[in-house]
């Protein structure tokens, strides 16, 4: 019996797809990497299907490429060794919303677009990365360690516990969801650690190589009703560093990040391209954005003391730094950002990173905020060598964990339909990454071309990873060729 028949037995004939059009659809993504054709696409209809498909794949040593999101940018779902694309987009149930314990349990196909509206009904939210694509899977984004746009929580990781099908086909529940009888148990799955080991860490940053999540518990926070937004403009990135360190350290604010004029204009432009052209001219080179929000109790008073603390910091440390409540020349002063930041990018609009040229390659890594200017200078020095116009370079700095560290992202825009431009961006991305890696950039999720250079440098880590991978995936079926295995 062939693979297709076996798969049909598991998920039903309608959910096993292998027409050339469909296969081609799954052979590429919105990024710079070349296509790779799957053998077959399987749409899982229920979580039990997942383990069955993986067990079957193990028997046949067939690669399995799990896909949850409707949109991808980094090539990690392109099946370069053929095999089964396991499409989880139909596993899109919000299984539980538990406001008292501030958790939500969802399936991997649940998207930002879906969850945000549902939770907003109860005045709650999952803290998101910066303006995620509405079709992105919530679970995938946090498995892939996207940085939350709110750095105030030291315990920022929103993922708590999950049920996972390990690559060997065994179903396992992590953290406090590992209790017998879950979810009909007193333990609700709010503790990620354990049982015995921090199993929840292993599938993170793994690009689907360490198994498939059936469902996950994520943290909920309140959705503030009363907010203020402040803009701190800078002409020199160096001047932004001290405020970046100091502001979250006094436990104030919600969303907090730095954008250069290109990225901010891409986000704020309403009429394309006129607004963008005007905004990218008038916006300051860098804008540090901070929202202050009131919790459910005494919200105005909270905003008041946080605002006072912000201005006290200014008085004490950065008197020359303007703190604006509206961006001059921007319709509405840019204040609508508050509301934009609590939702994914509108589905009906071209995704903000794709507005300028149709596609965007993001080169990002973890760094100390104090090192951000030298990384920026390096990119500024190098980009023109690749013919990339600096006026089109987007930069985004996301403080993490009260600005202890940051996610630093360079956005390079290109025309996806121009193969030469795409290749140029690919080369630039790879070579810049090598330069930045040499300077100490921490690439925790090296996609595509970056994988080899990073894993090669991480000698002992890579060796250990391979040993771990072998334990969990003895036949190396999960998304092979992706990381260092």
């Amino acid at each position, binding site marked *: 019996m062939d693979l297709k028949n076996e798969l049909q037995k598991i998920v039903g004939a309608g959910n096993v797809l292998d027409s050339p059009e469909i296969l081609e659809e799954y052979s590429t993504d919105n990024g710079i990497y070349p296509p790779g054709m799957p053998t077959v696409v399987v749409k899982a209809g229920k979580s039990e299907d997942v383990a069955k498909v993986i067990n079957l794949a193990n028997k046949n040593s067939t690669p399995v490429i799990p896909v949850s999101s409707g949109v991808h940018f980094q090539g990690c779902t392109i099946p370069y060794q053929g095999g089964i694309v396991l499409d989880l987009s139909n596993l899109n149930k919000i299984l539980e919303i538990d406001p008292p314990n501030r958790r939500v349990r969802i399936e991997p196909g649940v998207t930002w677009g879906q969850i945000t509206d549902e939770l907003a009904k109860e005045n709650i939210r999952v803290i998101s990365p910066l303006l995620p694509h509405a079709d992105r899977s919530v679970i995938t984004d946090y498995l892939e360690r996207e940085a939350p746009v709110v750095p105030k929580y030291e315990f920022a990781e929103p993922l708590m516990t999950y049920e996972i099908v390990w690559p060997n086909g065994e179903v396992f529940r992590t953290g406090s969801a590992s209790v017998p009888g879950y979810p009909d148990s007193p*333990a609700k799955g709010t503790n990620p*650690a354990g049982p015995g080991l921090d199993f929840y*860490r292993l599938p993170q940053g793994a690009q689907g190589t360490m198994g498939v999540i059936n469902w996950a518990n994520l943290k909920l926070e309140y959705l503030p009703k009363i907010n203020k937004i402040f803009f701190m403009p800078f002409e020199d990135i160096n001047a932004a560093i001290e405020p970046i360190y100091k502001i979250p350290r006094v436990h104030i604010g919600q969303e907090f990040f730095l954008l250069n004029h290109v990225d901010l204009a891409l986000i704020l432009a309403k009429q394309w391209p006129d607004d963008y052209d005007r905004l990218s001219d008038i916006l300051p080179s860098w804008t540090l954005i901070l929202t202050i929000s009131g919790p459910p109790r005494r919200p105005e008073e909270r905003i008041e003391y946080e605002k006072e603390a912000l201005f006290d910091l200014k008085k004490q440390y950065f008197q020359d730094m303007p703190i604006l409540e509206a961006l001059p020349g921007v319709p509405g002063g840019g204040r609508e950002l508050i509301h934009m930041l609590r939702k994914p990018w509108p589905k009906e609009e071209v995704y903000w990173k794709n507005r300028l040229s149709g596609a965007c390659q993001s080169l990002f890594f973890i760094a100390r905020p104090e090192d951000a200017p030298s990384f920026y200078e390096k990119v500024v020095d190098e980009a023109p060598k690749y013919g990339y116009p600096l006026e089109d370079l987007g930069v985004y700095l996301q403080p993490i964990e009260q600005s202890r560290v940051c996610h630093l992202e360079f956005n390079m825009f290109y025309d996806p339909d121009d193969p030469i431009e795409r290749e140029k961006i690919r080369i630039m991305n790879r070579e810049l990454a090598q330069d930045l890696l040499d300077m*100490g950039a921490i690439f925790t999720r090296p996609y595509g071309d970056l994988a080899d250079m990073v894993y090669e440098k991480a000698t002992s*880590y890579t060796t250990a990873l391979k040993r771990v991978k072998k*334990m969990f995936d003895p036949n190396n079926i999960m998304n092979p060729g992706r990381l260092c295995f």
Partner: protein
Amino acid sequence: MGIPQEAYKAMEDIVGSQYITDDQVIAQAYVGRLGHGKDTGIDLDMNVPPAVIVLPRTTKEVQGILKIAHRYKINYVPASSFWISHCAPKRPDSLLLDLKRMNDLEIDEENMCAICGPGVIFSQLQEEAIKRGMYTTTPGGGSQVSVVANHINWGLSPLNYRNGVPGRRVLGGEWVLPDGELLRIGSMSTTDDPFWGEGPGPDLRGLLRGWIGWFGAMGVVTKLAVKLLPFHDEGLKPVGISPHTTLQFPEKKRIRWYNFVMPTRESLVECMYDIGKAEIAAALTKVPQQWRYIAKAGCREDFWEGWNTDEARNSINNIHICRVMLVGYASEEQLEYEERVLMDIMDSYGAKLGRTRQSDNSWIKNADSATMWMMTGAYTSVQVTVDTVDCGVKGGEGLAREKPAFTPPLMDDYGEPGWFQVSEIGHMGYIEFLQYWDPNPDQENLYKKDEWNYIKVPTLDAEWGMFNAFNIYASPMNLTGKAYGPECRKWFEKVKAEFDPDKLSNDPIPWDVDEYVDKVDWVNKEDYINRDWSKG
């Protein structure tokens, strides 16, 4: 018999003769009887003196020692502050790595982390952090425990309320694997800087730590960066003379304790949820009644004079104290705001604000874990659940109902449901259920304290669906290891087989309880050990 002379000589060449000994008198100073788990069956029946003690100074020395141990198949036990019974040798002819010399401490002030050797303890780190306007969370294990060991185990503290459990705060570092090979984790995987915890791809911190770590059964962590947390810069002044020493809070309203007497336990739990949702406070905890009596007592006899009263007996069901710490991280105005919100919440439950001293002697810098042994001479925590607040309280109340069948030999705590508190600003609750007993062997049915600890509590937890992963290590793997995950024990076995196939790193951890209960006659193996947990 000891270890082969060639192996001893090779290790001596690595560390120098003054840092290694096989003297059996010195070895007696290292025999078990330590910290958590002291005087339990395992401690008394399995712990033996080491054959050789070695005191390495550097990662390279540890690597050398482990490679020699690997070559000569010597069982070894790494230990930092020796505060848990797992860290005592249980095999004859074991090598003990006493890591006290590995005490380097470096603070990265700008990026809020501390790079620690395993010999660094919490009060040292806390002082260095506070000097720089930051803090760490001194755990229930005590101020004297190793920062590294505790972060890779569990480290629960009321101060986790705002910051979550320390496992979140493990960053980069150096981990010498059981065979002596060095694994650099986190940002140290590609740089010499340990400021970030994730390495490329799957996060190997998942193997390093967990709920609740390996206790030396997976090599030695020789260097680890841990996060520090932003505090304010108003000093906390140490005052008093031992034993009445405390940290005096500043006059400025930047940090305050509040004690509320709640009308019922239910209202205590509900107010904890409300405080978390309001995103206020820096610590939120309910302490067991006996701790309040300890705090008031000048000595053990004072305690018992207070405890042996109807007032104490009735206090369990009648007095419900919610202890809250507020910190004005940003300003005095923050604390005043939080105080108003706190009062709103407490008023809505009819809570009464009691008196409390504006100082701290048990959490910020000092945690008197040793005081746990003061009442009866022996203590262990039998359940350490972290999930929701509600789950924790239900577990504590359930165990309190079952405990009388084991009392005596356990101390009668009148149905106290344990210590519970909130972490991650209300996302999690934490219960610690405690047992005390007199370890003097001249008592009837003393084995019941082990039955309660190793078998009964973990079984009840698994049956009820409580998350007591502490018992992954304090109960048979064939019980909890089967029930949780399910079958997390299999992964332990696989990981161990991959990285330590000869089981040299602190054998038989984490299968020590399995070995122990195999030998005793009071365990009904059919009911517990051989049970098929997949059937519930």
